[in-house]
């Protein structure tokens, strides 16, 4: 791994900021989509696509590539923005998100260059990641598999089936990241299903657990690096985040889970706030 230097951190902060701007532009252009959980995951995606993942946009299905599964498929705006910015397809396509003439489906589809697994029905991505991790071990390939889950998503039972199996199979080439933004579609997660003590739950299932601030670029980089050193166990990174991060009126507001800015004024305000963040980086 490259050493963590200030210039790299600054670059990744700028990438995360750019992803957030795309998220706002995309959901506003589409007049649909999920900004809240896209904004909370932007820093994680920036570190994955511009630092951690061994991928080659010119050869998107290279067998040795690291795999990434966006299990919380509704964060597709942030995912597609990261893929386009990384060079998997032209950025112009992003403004056609969710439109019939585009391959950018509402939720990740294999039509999209660089997407390793289609998702959208929550709770299934970790299973697919296990399949990829098992295949890597069978074929003696050293690629790693990363799965990004939502915290609401882990209410799905399939996730815990997968959690048990990943530990049983000692998949140390598998990293799960939980975007712990504490809000799901209808309400705050703790008012729907008590997820805490989340760290203890994963530990009890046999995983190595690393808890971080999911908006701190250095912490994300360190956690992903730390996950490489875990012999014989899968690692889960609990990334504590803020839903809607970077846009004041969306932060910690369940209603912006799946709703674009509601007016031209709201749209401009979001972009203006993000631009102010950029200037401060």
């Amino acid at each position, binding site marked *: 791994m490259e050493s963590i230097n200030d210039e790299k951190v600054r670059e990744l902060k700028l990438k995360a900021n750019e992803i957030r701007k795309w998220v706002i532009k995309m959901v506003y252009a589409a007049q649909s989509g999920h900004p809240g959980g896209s904004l909370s995951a932007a820093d994680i995606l920036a570190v994955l696509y511009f630092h951690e993942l061994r991928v080659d946009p010119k050869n998107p299905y290279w*067998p040795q590539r690291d795999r990434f599964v966006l299990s919380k498929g509704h964060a597709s705006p942030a995912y597609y923005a990261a893929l386009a910015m990384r060079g998997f397809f032209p950025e112009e396509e992003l403004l056609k998100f969710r439109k019939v003439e585009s391959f950018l489906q509402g939720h990740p*589809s*294999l039509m999209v260059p660089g997407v*390793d*697994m*289609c*998702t*959208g*029905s929550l*709770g*299934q*991505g*970790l*299973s*697919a*990641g*296990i*399949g*990829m*991790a*098992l*295949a*890597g071990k*069978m*074929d003696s390939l050293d690629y790693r598999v990363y799965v990004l889950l939502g915290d609401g998503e882990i209410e799905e*039972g*399939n996730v815990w*089936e*997968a959690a*048990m*199996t990943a530990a049983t199979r000692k998949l140390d080439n598998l990293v799960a990241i939980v975007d712990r933004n504490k809000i799901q579609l209808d309400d705050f997660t703790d008012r729907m299903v008590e997820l805490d003590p989340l760290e203890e739950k994963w530990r009890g299932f046999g995983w190595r657990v690393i808890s971080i601030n999911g908006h701190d670029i250095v912490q994300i980089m360190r956690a992903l690096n730390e996950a490489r050193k875990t012999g014989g166990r899968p690692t889960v990174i609990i990334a504590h985040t803020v839903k809607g991060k970077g846009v004041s009126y969306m932060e910690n507001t369940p209603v912006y889970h799946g709703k674009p800015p509601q007016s031209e004024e709201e749209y401009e305000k979001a972009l203006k706030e993000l631009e102010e963040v950029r200037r401060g980086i």
Partner: protein
Amino acid sequence: MNWDYESPRKAYGETLVELGRERDDIVVMDADLSTSTKTAMFGAEFPERFFNVGLQEQNMMGIAAGLARSGKTVFASSFAVFATGRAYDQVRQSIAYPRLNVKIVATHGGITVGEDGASHQMIEDIGLMSGLPNMRVIVPVDSNEVRSVIRFVASEEGPFYVRLTRTALPNLTDGDFKFGKGAVMRDGLDMTIIATGIEVGYSLKAAELLKEKGIDVQVVNISTIKPIDKDIIVKSAQDTGLIMTVEDHNIYNGLGSRVAEVLSENYPVRMLRHGMRDIFGRSGRWDTLLSHYEMDEKGIAKVAENFYKGVKS
């Protein structure tokens, strides 16, 4: 057509072992039923390519998708009720939609599961799987055909659903399976019985009983439910003018419904769907259940005779 009884599950297990010896990319999964589905035979010889995930059908289908996405040809097995019902959304989202190379081979389809009762007797699976875009659905007629079907699906890219029964089946073919093609098993002029799976043998025996009543019955086997052989169905309708379907499945969304679609769009004739008439099954020995629901040779002959007389009189 030697009518020797052989277990289709054992034929499946044996064929998997042969394929495992021939090809490194074959991977087999199960969800704690491997001694029943016979995938354990593969597991014994290829433990490094066999993943028995325990009681996790949903997780199994998701892992199967991930393995397939990484270049493996994956066979995933369980009982029909769990493989298609319990894991339906995983099959839909993670296998059918991305058209991944997963072969779902389910055993214990239909009421002939027997004593375990309605909870385990899957009579909706053909409908569930046929309704999925990209999914192809095969019900082998006998154990010889199981061998060729398993080899066929292993050689074809993309998802398949193969439905097997728990009970032994008489060998009616020498295993010359042709994907998407039905087969005339017996010629006849008065009416046609179109059947699938275990019901083909019973329909042939019923045809003999009906012959004694003066009714000359053609019997057609449909092994590929999707895509269905339109030509053979239309030809039968043209030749005999009267069609009855028989299946160990609900009459809704199974073989009968597929045949009705073909006929109504192409060559409408009178028809009757026979099988489980939108009711759940019950416990009992598999053969007594077939008798109870008039799906053995006597029951089929009785239903067919009434249908024939009702239309012709």
